[in-house]
């Protein structure tokens, strides 16, 4: 967390948005690589972001700093293979409160939400 905060505090806003654009295009490119259906419809994105912050946030904290479930901050997810994380979202974690989201989400949707987590979300 310290790291992420320092970075965003040090970069001026214009540079930050440029960095964000680069990050976004990298993300779009990388999702294209794994041949996922892209989530491009703004209304769809809005719905998913709301689900992420409000419903995932119920257990993981609205600021993803953890609660009943673990923290889902960029640095806690860093280095974990994306496919594994998507699989975890889809199948849930037996023995914990994490349910399988497969009945309600597509892999592309889970991937899109994961990417928002990797960027860091704010309520």
């Amino acid at each position, binding site marked *: 967390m310290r790291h992420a905060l320092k970075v965003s505090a040090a970069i001026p806003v214009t540079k930050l948005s440029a960095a964000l654009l680069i990050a976004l295009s990298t993300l779009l490119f990388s999702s294209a690589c794994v041949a996922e259906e892209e989530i491009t419809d703004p209304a769809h994105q809005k719905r998913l972001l709301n689900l992420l912050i409000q419903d995932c946030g119920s257990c993981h904290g*609205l600021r993803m700093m953890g609660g*009943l479930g673990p923290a889902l901050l960029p640095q806690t997810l860093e280095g974990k293979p994306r496919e594994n994380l998507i699989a975890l979202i889809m199948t849930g974690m037996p023995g914990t409160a994490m*349910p399988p989201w497969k009945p309600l989400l597509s892999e592309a949707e889970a991937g899109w939400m994961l990417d928002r987590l990797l960027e860091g979300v704010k309520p």
Partner: protein
Amino acid sequence: MTRLLLLIFSCLVLAACAHSPVPRGTGDLGVIIERTTGSVQIVQVDPPLSLGRVEGLGDLSHATAVFSRDQRYAYIFGRDGGLTKLDLLTKSIAIRVIQGGNSIGGAISQDGKLIAVGNYEPGGVKVFDAETLKLVADIPATPVPTKNQNARVVGIVDAPGQCFLFSLFDTGEIWLADFSKGVEPELTRYPDIGKQPYDALITMDGRYYIAGLFGEDGLAKLDLWHLERGVERILPNYGQGEQKLPVYKMPHLEGWTAAGDKMFVPAVGIHRVLVVENSTWQQIGAIDVAGQPIFVVARPDSRQVWVNFAHPNNDKVQVIDTESQRIIATLDTGPAVMHMEFTSRGDQLWLSVRDANEVQVWNPYTLEKIATLPAKTPSGIFFSSRAHKIGL
């Protein structure tokens, strides 16, 4: 001339009156948690009216509130460990402390002098002077052998006799902290109550403390009239069962409702409300409903219970007639109903519709919506009438 002076004098008196606030009671007020913005609205219940918004309360996901016995102050427990004493009259923060790193709820003692907060991080309970919010007791929970931390605390309630009760998620215990002899609590531990208690309730008469178990089926019950009997298991089939259905939101046990000689209980993971006989603790029925139930709350006259649901069926509320045990209404409320609160005499029911950014006020007798108040992603609604209820 005299007349002119008199006129000037009257004007001055009137002006003075306009500036001094009109005295008002606080027994018909409430707070609405605005979870995303970390703000709280202070409302008047009747007629429904927002009196103002107080900001700066931190992370309010899963926030709850209790009230001082004079109903002037609300104590708000935030997810980020924030404990805020809110003055309902001045609509401002009286005191705010960050008492932990990750917190799930709290309680106010029978005499109103102590505030206890249940923490995930650091696992345990901290108890504060209700007046000053100065720490008076720190009760670390059992260390978890595999982790470098203490067990997470859930289901904290006040109990008669100046006690607090709470459960430990990671180590499967119920603890009773008795403050009747002073701020040095006498602790009684009930181990092996079952796997992963996730929430608990105390019955409205303050007699039974019941913990729900995430890790296995059944519930753990402690009879406060007969502590010597220890924790007993009830409703052995209550839970996810063999199939382990996905549960998108755990039902709140606070929503357990006694209505007459029966209790109406949200089932876990399945679309049912269970009917339990009070005297025997046996399930005697089940009512099919529109989703996984979260809160099941009774109208204070016990004739109806209102039920809301987990995602993706959280855009409606159902009303059950407790006598016939039939659904008498399905109300399309709008997206993401989070919480429901009855007035203590039951003439109004307030419900928060998070994704519509509004709170709706319903007449539960005519089943008509009587008012709508705008609110930013509202979740919990708490009325100051809770001040005089055990366990709330």
